[in-house]
């Protein structure tokens, strides 16, 4: 247990090294102040940032949601200001100044006109708000799929994401690569969302609102990032012990980057004879029962496809950075990073782990 904790702390330190703590503290302090003012928050959050801010939309559906939310904020804000002002006024103005408790104020039992007014005005507000909302619901949800859209099947697993590109024969995990979609060259990505086990929810706040992945109930969602970059998200429906570490990374690539990435992913795994010992361990131990490495005997579908493991920045659905040190700790005992995850510790000798990690790090 002690060792496990230690390894976990190491991983934290490694993550921290990438993002020096002081700017992040400044950021979160700022975000509190800026949340009060949506447009300012948006301006602040634009550009490369690791905050999955719902007020920093980066695709068409989230832009529409953002504009709708500003409208709803304005309406509810106006109601808040007027009613809160009324409450404050009443509390101050009618604070008791009775010298004689027997003097009761004049009793008023009601007034039809006034009551009608504060029934009819809210009805009108609700009608306006409803019509605006319904328009956006239909606009986002019933968006027809253009012929050139990229199709990706997202499969939720306890506790990782599987991404399949049926038109390209590519399977990857936890890090979704999609093309940027510009005005000149629109190429939205349409996601088909299914679950392999329990309910999950796919949520990348800057790219699309969340949609649940429910067994026996396929869902759809779409996104079209306007700027290249990395967008963060995570599972938003409690799915078990490691729900917290079911993170999503979406890379919006330029067309050329995306084509290059696809080309690499379509290849079979690198076959480097210098790490054959590690490959032998992979194929003779239970690893191959759960994982696929294209071009080898490993065809398992329970865990993530590892054919191009080293093309991914993180391990275990974002639980740790994908460095050889972390990979070693992970293979030795997955509970180091994700206690309760479904990958078992294989109880390999140190030498076997070294050989296996050498093999895995060759999978570019």
């Amino acid at each position: 247990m002690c060792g496990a904790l230690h390894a976990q702390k190491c991983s934290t330190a490694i993550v921290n090294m990438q993002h020096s703590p002081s700017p992040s503290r400044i950021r979160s302090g700022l975000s509190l102040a800026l949340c009060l003012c949506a447009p300012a928050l948006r301006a602040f959050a634009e550009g490369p940032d690791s905050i999955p801010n719902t007020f920093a939309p980066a695709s068409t559906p989230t832009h529409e949601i953002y504009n709708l939310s500003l409208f709803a904020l304005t309406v509810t804000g106006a109601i808040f200001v007027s009613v809160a002002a009324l409450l404050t006024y009443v509390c101050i103005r009618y604070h008791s100044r009775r010298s004689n408790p027997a003097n009761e104020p004049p009793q008023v039992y009601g007034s039809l006109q006034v009551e009608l007014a504060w029934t009819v005005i809210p009805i009108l507000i609700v009608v306006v708000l409803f019509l605006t909302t319904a328009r956006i619901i239909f606009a986002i949800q019933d968006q027809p799929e253009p012929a050139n859209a990229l199709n990706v099947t997202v499969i939720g697993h306890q506790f990782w994401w599987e991404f399949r590109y049926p038109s390209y024969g590519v399977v990857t995990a936890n890090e979704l690569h999609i093309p940027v979609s510009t005005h000149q060259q629109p190429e939205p990505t349409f996601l088909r969302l299914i679950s392999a086990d329990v309910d999950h929810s796919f949520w990348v706040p800057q790219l699309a609102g969340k949609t649940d992945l429910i067994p026996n109930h396929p869902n759809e969602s779409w996104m079209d990032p306007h700027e290249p970059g990395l967008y963060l998200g995570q599972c938003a429906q409690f799915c078990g012990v490691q729900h917290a570490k079911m993170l999503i990374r979406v890379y919006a690539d330029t067309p050329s980057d995306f084509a290059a990435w696809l080309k690499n992913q379509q290849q079979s795994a690198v076959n480097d004879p210098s790490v054959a010992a590690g490959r032998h361990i992979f194929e003779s131990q239970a690893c191959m029962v759960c994982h696929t490495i294209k071009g080898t005997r490993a065809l398992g579908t329970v865990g993530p496809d590892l054919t191009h493991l080293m093309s991914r920045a993180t391990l275990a659905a974002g639980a740790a950075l994908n460095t050889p040190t972390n990979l070693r700790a992970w293979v030795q005992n997955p509970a180091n990073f994700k206690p309760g995850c479904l990958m078992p510790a294989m109880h390999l000798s140190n030498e076997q782990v070294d050989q296996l990690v050498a093999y895995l790090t060759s999978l570019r």
Partner: protein
Amino acid sequence: MSDQTIPVSGSLQAAYPERGTLLEWLHGWIVTVDHKKLGILYITYALFFLLVGGVEAMLIRIQLMVPHNHVISPEMYDELFTMHGTTMVFLVGMPILFGFANYLVPIMIGARDMAFPRLNAFSFWLTAFGGLLLYYSFLGGFGLYGMGNAPDVGWFAYAPLTGKSFSPGHNMDYWALALIVSGFGTVGTAINIIATTVSLRCKGMTFFRMPLFVWLLLVVSALTLVTITPLTAAQVMLLLDRYLGAHFFDAQAGGSPMLWIHFFWIFGHPEVYVLVLPAFAIANEVIPVFSRKAIFGYPAMVAASVGIGFTSLAVWAHHMFTVGMSSAGNSFFVISTMVVGIFTGIKVFNWLATMWGGSITFSTPMLFCTGFLFQFLIAGLTGIMLAVAPWDWQLHNSYFLIAHFHYVLVGAIIMCIFAGFYYWFPKATGRMMSETLGKWHFWVFIIGFHMSFDTMHFVGLLGMPRSIYTYEPNRGWDTLNLIITIGAFVQAVGVLIFVWNLVHAYFRGKLAGPDPWDAWTLEWATPSPPPAYNFAVEPEVRSRRPLWDIKHPNDPDWKYEQ
């Protein structure tokens, strides 16, 4: 006890019989069928679990104080948030409000007891044992070695995570059985309140002369009958799935997890109103008395309450905007949800109009009700934001949602419950709670409340989802979470002041007399605490404020009421 219906001459001053030995005293409480004693039992039971659920919340907040924290294991964290939610809804919210109802409904309508006193006792003990059964899972799940396995799937318990293949232990069984058992108790109480209200009103008390408190509890009870049923049905289906190989929710055998979601929220949304309407009921009594004015627009208040009751049955799928309903389906639940806003708007305006032109004294009950008005305004408006379906695709299951429903449950309901305590404690015990401590309680609690729950909105807007035992340090959530945790500690201090105030007042409080607040409803016409039979002679009323009529013989209400 309850069958002691013959008025004994001169007995008006008699309180409870002499205590006798400890065993006799205990026996008296266990076998009682007196609605007042059962009400106090409900409230004491709920207060105990309020502290338990509060400790669970504190542990959750300690774990989330900083990113990558290791105070609590992920398994333990999941148990804590599941038990926190289940406890606060089923073992605190409902029992405490039914406790107030039990104590007050019969006295307010001039009755001597509930319609079915024995059913009343049975209901309480079912609820009580339901709670014990739920908590026994901490020990009984894996046997008696410390952390057993308490339910760990969230209080919403979405299938198929609750199935045998994903939850192989006995934790889900404890959860399902405990809720079935306490659900039966709840239904019993609901039937009892309806029967009492319909058949035991005193002479002259027509439906439109009932205090609004009683009206709201009538609506709540009707709603309870409708909502507990689907929950119990769903629990039975879950147990059938787990033990008899049924496939209601078992996705691998072709079952439908969607079915659970529908059943749960057909229960779950009206449940919110089951909890919040009694809170409104308390505000309806407190605000007029401390503003020294009759409630403004009584018929509109009744209509709005009944309207909320009906509408709340048609809004459940606003918890399901992200499950992939059709756009027409989503739109329907947007409009039905916003309609609730119209009804609650009427209520808020009527409360403000009651205060308008009044002569407001900010005693502790009124302070809490004013806090309630302010926080309920915000809770209602964030509710409207969540009803905007596309925005909900962002806000759902984020900390914004957590902030919203804690604004309702803590900012509105718990605040009203505190108001109710300060208001009726003198009636139930004959002693006043301390005003000084009450004001400390109010200010400390409300400062902590706003630190925690205002901040939660922002961390949700920054993309933090619920139910996570830890989070990454680079997401802009660190400082905000630290503030939330500090706020939670401040609230805990507030609650401790309250508990101390209760205990101190029970033994040392100033004597209250029958009517310390110069109020107008019938419970203030009997001694404090009231004798077992409540009223020596059946009262007769001519208006909604019988004590006003007595106190102002030249200007009675019945001259103006239609």
